[in-house]
Structure formats: C-alpha cells, structure tokens
C-alpha cells in the first residue's frame, strides 16, 4: 500500500495508456453486465413449464377444402375418432390452440360482468373430455368434462358454455381468498357465467412473447367443439412411438378425408419442435450475448497483457535500479498488481455508471427490465479479477528482471 504514491506518479507519465485501459474496462463492464442480465432473463423464460407432459406429443394443423364452416363438425368428429384408432396413438382431441403454438384466443375474465376492467387476462382453449389425458395436464381439484357437456359451436356465434376448467394461476387470481371450485366467472363481455368445475395445476398460453408475461399461466378450458374448417389436433403417442405416428397420423387423416391441407410450416410438429421454435429468439439471444461476453473479456484481457508488457519492457532499467536498491521480487510483482488494481477500480467505477445508464436507456427504448445491482457487482468483481489475472504474466516477467539491468543501457 505504501507504493500507491509512486504508482500514481508513474501513471501520470503514462496517461494515454492508463486512460485507454480504464476506458476499456469501463465499456466492457457496461456491456458485460447488461449482456449477463439479458442472458439470465432469457434463460428464465425458456425454462418455464407448459403444464403439459411434453414428450410423446404431436401437433397437426389441418384445413378442409371446399367445405363451408357449418358442414365441418362431423368431419372433425370423424377425424378425431380415426386418430384415436391409429396404432401407437394413446389419445387425441381437436382444439383451436395449445401452449406455445404461437396463435390463439385471448380475452378478459371478470367476476362482475359490468366491470370495465377484467379481473385477469386469459387464453381460451376449446377442448373435449379427452384433452386432459392427451395433454398430460394435472387436475388438482374438481372433475374433468364429460362427453355430454361438449357443445358444437361456430366460432362466429360462440356463447360461453356453463362449465369451465381453469388453471390454478387463474383460479387464484379470480378467487384469491377461497377455493374457486363451483364458483362462477364471466368471459369477455358475456353476461352468462361459466362455473368452474375443475382446476388444473398449470397450462401455459399459446404465446411466448414478453407481452404475455403477466398472464402466462392463465388459461380456461371450455367444453366446445369449434366448427371452423381450420382445426388443430393434439395427439399423444404411446411411449416410444412418436416417430412412428408422426408418419402414420397424416396418412390416416388423408385416408379419412382427402380434401384437406395440412397447413404450412406449423403443419406437423412434435412438441419438442414447438418449444424450440417458440423460444428460438430467446435462446439465440442468450447464446449471442454469451459469445459477445466471452470474446469481449478475452479482448480486454489481451489488451491489458499487451499494454502492461510494453510498460514492463519500457521500465526494465528502472526495475533493475529498484532491485539493486533492495526491492524484492514480491515488491515488483505487487507494484504491477497494485497499479492494475488502481486503474481497474477507476474503470469499474465509471463502468458501473455506464452499465446502469445503458440499462436505463434499454429500459426506455425496448421495455426491458431494470438491471439488478447484483449483476453490476458481479461484473465489477469479474473485471477486477480479469485485470489481475491478465497482468500476472507480465508482472512475473518484471519481477524476474535482474538487478544487473540497472547497469545496462537499453
């Protein structure tokens, strides 16, 4: 610590290099903090459970050709029955959407039908009595639908059915203080209520974007068979048979009715693919930010090694003199480490300010969350350690300078 004064004097003579290293540390800290924060946020998102048993699930989107909507009901019925007969299929049902599909219905749920603001936002899944088994969703209270409750309805003339199953998250939002089972609620602006007959542990909404974060686990299951010529089928394979039914199920559908199209890029997907596609940009962003962090730290470390090596080379003679005057190897080593620590501290102080400023800017422009100070602290420690690590090799070299250098001209 006694060395701080001479170090400051020496640094004054190397202003440019000192400023450059400090600046580099500051900018690196600002970017690394924010990048780590983005990574953490994205990774948390992509680990969210859907509430489904995701293995052995297959999804198919199909559209009937040349059939008006009112003629579709028996066709869907026959499709579902055919699907349940396919070898290797455990169960199947027709619906409008499923978790992470990337498109579906959302609406407000109200306790009071005249309330301006809904109590909670929710998604609606139109299903039948096979849905829970197919999804592998866990019913934690109440009962499943029975076959007699399923109504057939045109999406353009849909009325809220008398029964509904809701997720635990939605039930707790609607009835925070008591059990929601057996209680009524209203969907959209409908004046007739649905009664909650069952509660499932969890079901995610069809979307993965950040705009759904505040109702991610709010879902309503309604006993409705929608008659739209665009239909989604969710199919559970018997264990280990997913690959087989991925081929046999489309064939069975075409055999049942040739006049259809299995639509586009989302036509046939295993649930693993559904999840991968839903979180593609989240995962990509996390990987990209990770790579950026690593390369950035490596470049900063390399810069410190480079400049310190130069300083050591430049000061060989002075080091020799100090050694001749009795300084130990340790003294020389700690001189360079302290020097770097001082520069590093200036750098991280500026950098912490920059990191927070950069985050505030991101918050205002990209609706990102506020940076937690833990990340700044972690970044500060990381960069100071990185600096000490980077300076170690040149400092060791400096400490090995022999006192004879003092007598030698460069």
């Amino acid at each position, binding site marked *: 610590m006694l060395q701080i004064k001479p170090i400051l004097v020496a640094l004054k003579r190397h202003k440019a290099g000192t400023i450059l290293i400090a600046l*580099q540390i500051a*900018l690196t800290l600002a970017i690394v903090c924010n990048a780590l924060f983005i990574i953490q946020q994205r990774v948390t998102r992509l680990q969210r459970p859907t509430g489904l048993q995701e293995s052995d699930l297959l999804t198919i989107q199909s559209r009937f050709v040349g059939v008006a909507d009112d003629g579709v009901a028996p066709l869907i019925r026959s499709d579902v029955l055919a699907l349940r007969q396919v070898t290797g299929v455990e169960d199947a049902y027709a619906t409008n959407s499923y978790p992470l599909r990337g498109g579906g219905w959302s609406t407000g749920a109200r306790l009071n039908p005249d309330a301006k603001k809904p109590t909670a936002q929710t998604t609606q899944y139109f299903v039948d009595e096979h849905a829970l088994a197919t999804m592998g969703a866990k019913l934690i209270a109440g009962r499943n639908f029975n076959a007699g409750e399923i109504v057939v309805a045109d999406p353009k003339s849909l009325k809220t059915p008398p029964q509904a199953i809701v997720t635990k998250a939605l039930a707790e939002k609607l009835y925070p203080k008591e059990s929601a089972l057996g209680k009524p609620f209203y969907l959209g*602006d409908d004046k007739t209520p649905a009664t909650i007959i069952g509660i499932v542990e969890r079901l995610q909404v069809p979307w993965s974007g950040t705009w759904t974060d505040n109702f991610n686990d709010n879902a309503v299951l309604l006993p409705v068979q929608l008659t739209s010529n665009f239909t989604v089928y969710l199919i559970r394979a018997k264990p280990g048979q997913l690959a087989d039914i991925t081929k046999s199920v489309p064939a069975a559908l075409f055999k049942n009715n040739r006049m259809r199209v299995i639509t586009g890029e989302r036509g046939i997907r295993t649930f693993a693919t559904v999840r991968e596609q839903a979180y593609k940009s989240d995962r990509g962003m996390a990987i990209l930010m990770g790579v950026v962090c690593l390369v950035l730290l490596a470049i900063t470390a390399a810069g410190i090694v480079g400049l310190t090596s130069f300083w050591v080379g430049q000061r060989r003679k002075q080091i020799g003199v100090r050694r001749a005057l009795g300084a130990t190897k340790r003294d020389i080593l700690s001189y360079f480490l302290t020097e770097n620590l001082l520069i590093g501290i200036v750098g991280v102080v500026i950098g912490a300010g920059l990191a927070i400023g950069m985050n505030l800017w991101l918050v205002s422009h990209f609706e990102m969350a506020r940076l937690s100070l833990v990340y700044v602290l972690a970044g500060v420690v990381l960069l100071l350690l990185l600096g000490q690590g980077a300076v170690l090799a040149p400092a060791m070299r400096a400490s090995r300078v022999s006192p004879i250098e003092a007598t030698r001209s460069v």
Partner: protein
Amino acid sequence: MFSYYVQLGVRSLKRNPWLTALMVMAIGFGVAASMITYSVFRAVSGNPIPEKSERLFIPQIDSWGPKYNLLGNEPPYALNYVDAMAMMRTHKAKHQTMLYPIGLSALPRGGQSIPFTVEGFTVQSDFFAMFDVPFQYGGAWPTSDDDQRAAVVVISRKLNDKLFGGENSLGREITLSGHNYRVVGITENWNPKPRFFAVWGGSSFGNPSDIYIPISRAMDLRIDTAGNNSCRGRIDYSDWDGWLQSNCVWVTPWVQLDSAAEVAQYRQFLEGYAADQQRAGRYGWAPNVRLRNVMEWLDYMQVVPKESSISLLVALGFFAICLINTIGLLLAKFLRRAGEIGVRRALGASRREIYVQYLIEAGAVGLAGGVLGLLLTALGISGVGLLFQPQIARLAHLDFTLVGLTLLVSIFATMVAALYPTWRAAQVQPAWQLKSN
C-alpha cells in the same frame, strides 16, 4: 516511397507477431460483429418501396372510442367492415385499395393429386399499380371487375410454375377452395421486405403471396381473413352478417396521395367522415383519425425486431472496445520504436513522413483485420438463423456492398484509431532519443 513504407510496415508487423495478431483479431471480431448485426438490421429496417413511400398512406379511423382505444388514444390498426366499405364506395383518393390476407386451397390437375395451401390477399384493382407489382404476363384486372364482383385472380410466377408448368396461362381457370377463378395476370416474384402493406393482420416478413383476388368477390364468398381480427368491448355478433356489422377490425386500407394538397384534402375527408358517423350516432366520440405514410407506419408498428436493434447496439459497443484496445496496442508498438523514429528523424525524415509511414502500417493492420472480419462475417451470417425467425434470417446475406463496407470500415477505423499513437510517434524528439541511447 509508398512501397517502401508498405515494406517497412509489413516488416514491423512481423517483428511483434503476437501484438499484431492481437490487433488483427480484435479488429476482425469487432468489425464482424458489427457487420453481421448490421446485415440483419439493414434487411429489416429498409424502405420497401423507396420511390413511393412518401406517397402511400394508411388511413386510420377511430371506430372503438376512447374506452377501448390503443395506448395514447390511438385508433385501431385497421378498419371494420362498415367503414371499409364506405371508404371503398366514396373513392376519395385517386388510387386506393382495401386488403386483407387469405389462405385458400388449390388443387393441381390430375385425379389423385392432393390439395395444397395458397396464401395471398384480397385487394382492389389499384393495388398492383400503387405498389408497383411487376408482371410476367397480363396485369391487374380492370376496375370494372371490382364493381362486377368478378371471379378473377392474379397469381404469382411460382404458383403458375406449379399449376401450369410456367406457360402463359392467362384466361385459364383455377379452383380455389371449391370456386373457379379466371387468371388475368401472373406476377414476377415479388415480396417487398418488410411487407409494409400487411404489417398488421399479415406478417411483416412472410412468404411471397401466391394469389390476389378482388375483395368484392371475397365478400360474396364469405372468405374469412387469415390474419388478425381484433374486437373490443361487447362482442355481440352471432353470425357472419353480425360479424360484418360488429366493431371488429380486420381490413387494411391504403391510398396514394401525390401532393401535399391531396394529403390535406384527404385528411379533411377522413375527419368529415368521422364527424358524419358521430352525427349519425354510430360513434359517440369526436373524430380521431390518422394518416401515416409507409415509413411512418413501419416505425409506428415497430417492424424492426427488438433483437435486431439490441444486438446491433451491443455489436457497435463491442467494436468500440476493440478499437480502444487497438489504440492502446498501437501506442505500445509505435512508442517501443521511439529510438528508431529518432534515428530516422535525425537523418532528415520529416514529421509528415513519419505520419505517412505509421498510418500505412496501421492501414495494413486494418486490412488484415478486415479480411479476418470478412471470413467471420460470412461465418456469422450463416448462423443468423440462431437468433431470428427463418423468414428474417433468410434476408441477411453477404453481398458486394457488405464486403466492401467490411473492408472499408475496418481499414478506416484502424487508421482513425492510429491517429493518436501516430501523433505521439511523430512527436519523438530526434536529439533526445539519440542522446538517451
């Protein structure tokens, strides 16, 4: 002299291979990160129709009212059916089109064939001229076909290849979802990026359209929108006609207005229309209209994905750090040769010559960094699919501009970074250096 300096530069680069490699790598990584993210940004933020973007407008009318409007009392993104039809009839702008996305099925010839999906838009005749749609054969249907609700279709070159083997199929019939249409035009491959006219309701970076049919015909056949349908408040319709009369918005209008006077006139018309609706009791609120041109609309709809902007910013910061790093390393490298500079100065080299020599040396580092950066950029662009949806990833590509830009940016940035170190090198006092040795 120039070639001599280049030689000197190369020799000096070889003398400290580690330091040189470090600089080249820093510049290479920095420039590559910037270029990769820029290539994506360029693809998603470009002007899709530069010649006309100032003259194409999307009118918005407040049909929801203050209780249900978007943030900041912004009117809905599209029109409901009633307003759309009213505007279609009044035809206040010289050129206008209503549109919405559709998905139908087509059946190739041959008994055993299976149908496939075709995607496109219902439009009005003006659509093709307004948006400069290029044609391979034929052209837009005449406006009279809009009025007569004719069963005509414009198909894409790709669909024509698929259905008719690429021959001139004008006048032939195709069956879409069970109804026959006569082919009147075949477009060239056309798909502006972003697809500005269907940002809401369609998809900004979707696949090229296969078909376009008259909106009037689509209404007769009750073809539902394949895109967004947004309703607010009490949803009280119970069938197709009820839906058409409801406050659900799903039709996107576009108008072409060629002068400031026309724009002002049209805005007046919109406000007049909204005021009429208020008087008629349809709307219980004051007129609230918007008239945005293409770029204003893309900006308002935030078409550039968040990922693209953030990664571009991070990459630029990254590049800045690489350059600061390079300044430091160049400084170390140049000043280490203070003795050599002193000798040269003493032997009569002017400051200018020192500048030239060291800037050339820096330029060589920049060039090497640029070449490395180019390799990394090529590698990185093939990995863009990691971060972005395939439709967007496909847009990022390495072209001549990008290659040139990579090399130029890299050389230029390195030379700018070298200014300070070079200045320091040129300040070396010959006498002082000679004496100290």
